């Protein structure tokens, strides 16, 4: 089923209960992400974008609606069914990196591969390859706490990609990074995307969103805009002059 969309969501709804009062976070979202597509989800805080991406990865349970991942229906899965699905098909990157503090960088990256049932040797090779790609080879034995935020997020990215998942989900991956580290993570994201990785990410950062093929805007738990970015180039190459004028 190679032509099946990587993700399909049909009328997805999430309602939290807060002190007996139902609080809708996501109110009927239809969405389709093709294989190899890079989709950014934007929206003000509280618009339900994190909830949406958590539901797509099975971290949060949907209230109603359907979720299809890679042609299979996933919303009816049990918690452990979701866990098994995530192992094989979904990689997650979080805002606060969430590396397992007690494990070394190498262990963090090897963990999903081992979890997927790969032999320790294969897991090590994959880890060496990924850390090499991300320029972190010499940090393999370090503890996460010894790394800078940018390095930690790169390790988290390596961990998410360890099992070559069909789908990479990211929740504000640069939300906790300064602009220099953001640039590193961005370059990595665009690299893996160029190699065919499907990415759905929630972001507030226009730089991240502008790299996506498509931007989905949420407001109050609903999609208000969904479309590819226009190629509005009037010159072969734009300049900052479109945005900034140096007065003179």
């Amino acid at each position, binding site marked *: 089923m190679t032509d099946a969309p990587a993700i399909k969501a049909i009328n997805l709804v999430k309602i939290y209960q807060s002190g007996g009062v139902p609080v809708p976070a996501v109110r009927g979202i239809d969405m389709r992400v093709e294989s190899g597509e890079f989709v950014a989800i934007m929206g003000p805080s509280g618009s339900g974008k*994190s909830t949406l991406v*958590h539901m797509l*990865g*099975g*971290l*949060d349970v949907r209230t109603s609606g359907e979720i299809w991942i890679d042609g299979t229906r996933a919303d009816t899965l049990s*918690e*452990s069914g979701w*866990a*098994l*699905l*995530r*192992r*094989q098909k979904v990689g*997650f990157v*979080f*805002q*606060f990196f*969430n*590396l*397992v*503090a*007690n*494990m*070394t960088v190498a*262990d963090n990256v*090897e*963990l*999903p591969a*081992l*979890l*997927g049932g790969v032999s*320790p040797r294969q*897991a090590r090779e994959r880890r060496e390859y990924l850390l090499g790609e991300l320029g972190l080879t010499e940090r393999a034995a370090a503890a996460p706490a010894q790394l800078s935020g940018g390095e930690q997020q790169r390790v988290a990215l390596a*961990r998410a990609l360890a099992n070559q998942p069909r789908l990479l989900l990211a*929740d504000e991956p640069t939300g*906790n990074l300064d602009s220099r580290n953001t640039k590193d993570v961005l370059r990595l994201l665009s690299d893996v995307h160029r190699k065919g990785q499907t990415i759905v990410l929630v972001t507030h950062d226009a730089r991240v969103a502008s790299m996506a093929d498509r931007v989905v805007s949420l407001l109050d738990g609903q999609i208000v805009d969904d479309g590819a970015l226009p190629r509005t180039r009037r010159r072969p190459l734009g300049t900052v002059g479109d945005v900034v004028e140096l007065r003179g």
Partner: protein
Amino acid sequence: MRAELRWIRADLRARRGQALLTILTVAGIVTALVTAATLLEDGTNPWRGLFTRGHGAHIWIHTKDTPDVVSLQGLDGVADIAGPYRSAPATLTGHGRKVPIALQETPAAFQAVARPLLREGRWLDVRDPDAVVVERSFARALGLRPGSPFPVTGLNGASHTLIVAGVAESGDQGFYPDWAPGLVWTLAGTLNVVEPAPGRTETVIGLRLADPDDTDLVVQRAVTALDNQVQRVSTWREVRASMELDNRLLGLLLALFGVAGLVAAALALANATGGRVLGQVRDIATLKSLGFTRGQVTRTLVAEHGVLGVFGIVVGLVAGRLITAYALPDTVVVPLSSGPFAAIALGTGLVVLGSVWLPAWRGGRTPPIPATPAAPPRGHLSRLARVALLVRLPPALVLGARDAFTRRTHALLTVSGVAIPMMMISIGLGSWATLDEFIRHPERVGQAAALTVRPGDLSADEARGRAAADPDVAALYPGAELDALVPWQTRTVRTRALGLSADPYPFPVVEGRIFRDRGEAVAGQGLLDLLGVHVGDRVRMTIGGTPLIVRIVGRVVEPEQDGEVLSFGLDSLAAKDAEPPQFYSLVLRSGADPAEVRDRLHDRALEVAQVVNPADRLSIIRLIIVALVVVLALIGLANLLTASALGLRDHAPDLAVLKAMGLTPRQVMATLVTGTGLLAVSGVVIGTVAGASLSTALIDLEGRESGVGAGIGRAPTPGMLVASVLVAVGASLLVTLIPARRAARARVPHSAR
């Protein structure tokens, strides 16, 4: 599996100290249990130790003539042979008494099988043909020591003056006077002198078996092999039975402590695991986002913490073995038998898994979204804190009081983590007080008389006269102990006629009243239970064919025979059983030393036995109480340490704010100490109160179950309680002080959340 192992390894490496503490806690408890059980087994069944150390023979065969050793040796199942030795009956004379003895030939060199264990003096030597070695229980009953003269009269009437060279123990024969005649070892030459006629001696031969379970079979074969020569056979089972002490009370007390230890261990483990799991909620959530299933997380946590527990169990079992083997070589001869050993291992194993499983299960239910940091609930001021505010306590105390109860479950766990060990400690102190009571007031447990005198070959009146003449003897009660057959029961019970109805022995009556008339009796709890009767009922039994009908008018504390004893006045007995009295129980003047009086009476040729106080038999319990109190205290402190570490984790962000607001390090420290200390102090107080009020009831319950009967339990003395509370509070404040101090000193960074 590999992913889980990787995680376990990393986590254990990150908290070596905590892991070590967990292992030590479990190991400590298991060690205490193994040691206690070993002491119990050994203390109540000396046969095992004696038999093992003496490399005893399982079967002893008495024959008229020397049997066919080769054919016995060839019997299937016989591993080795002791003897054959000649044995001759003789009489110990002197001080106007005659006591039958059995002289048994023995080689000068220690033999491989069934060697007596020399306790005092020296062994036999060919250069000293007049020497004998006396079996210890017999020597004690007769007041013999190395160097004592040992005048012996043979069957031919000739007297020989021998000398006691040594005192030895043996697992081949029961204790005197249960097992008579008294055993005396001599060299073959000495035996020939005392009994020159071979026809009047018999031969004993001991068979050591490869498998003790084959005893009956081998006995049968030996009897067949020896045809009609066999006169008498005794087996290790009989010896063991005769040596066994009634150990129900001891066993129950130990069981109580065992359960207490296990509960405390479970609590400690659950606390440690729970604290750890709470501390790594984010990591667990991350793992789940990576694809760990709920069950996998639970299994991983159980495995990680369970491995620590199991490791602790193994360490404890080994340590227990080593301690009983090397640290207590005098008390303990044989390691714990495999049954109880396996039971301890299995029981603690189950407790470990059970107590680890609950927090692990909760850990497994962590939602998989790691982005939400586990923030403690911001409670409003608790009522306690408001009170603290009202009475104008310093701000640090108010803040601490607020912190103490923000996390309800956590607070509850901490309080019970301190209260349960404290309660068990108080119960332990209660047991201690009970034992003290036994020793200080033996009359309250039915042992008003410290000595019993048997007339032996004197006339009863003469014995009575000689005993009464001693200045330290305050009162003297004639008595007889007889086995009575109870209708509908296949077994006999012990009846004890002691004192007269008009002048009854001071039994400790705890229910009803003492007997005042013929036909009235008092009984121990065990007997009431056995017969299913109550105070006020009539019982009917036969003693030596004579029917006896008595009405039970009271229940007494009865430390002997598991309480299955019926006591009444000597005048209730038929004259044939009552006259002359078998013995006299001597109540001594208060302050008199029973051992001294016993020696004086010995010198007057009386056969005197000193009553064994149950507390002496239970004395190993004191050792166990001390050990358990230490372990329990450690567990309580470990719980507290976990709690304060957790509290610190919750408050780390607050600390920065508090410092910024202008709290001095000292105030910050006071806040933290108050937070945990308040919980600790309430735990200590609750535990002590519960323990003190429970201990009397619990010990009485045990007394009742063991047949001794309710009425022995004593609460710990107020002094003991106050001391234990003070020590506990002090220690717990110290324990909370250490992390608090470190936290107050450290620069707390604003953690990125």
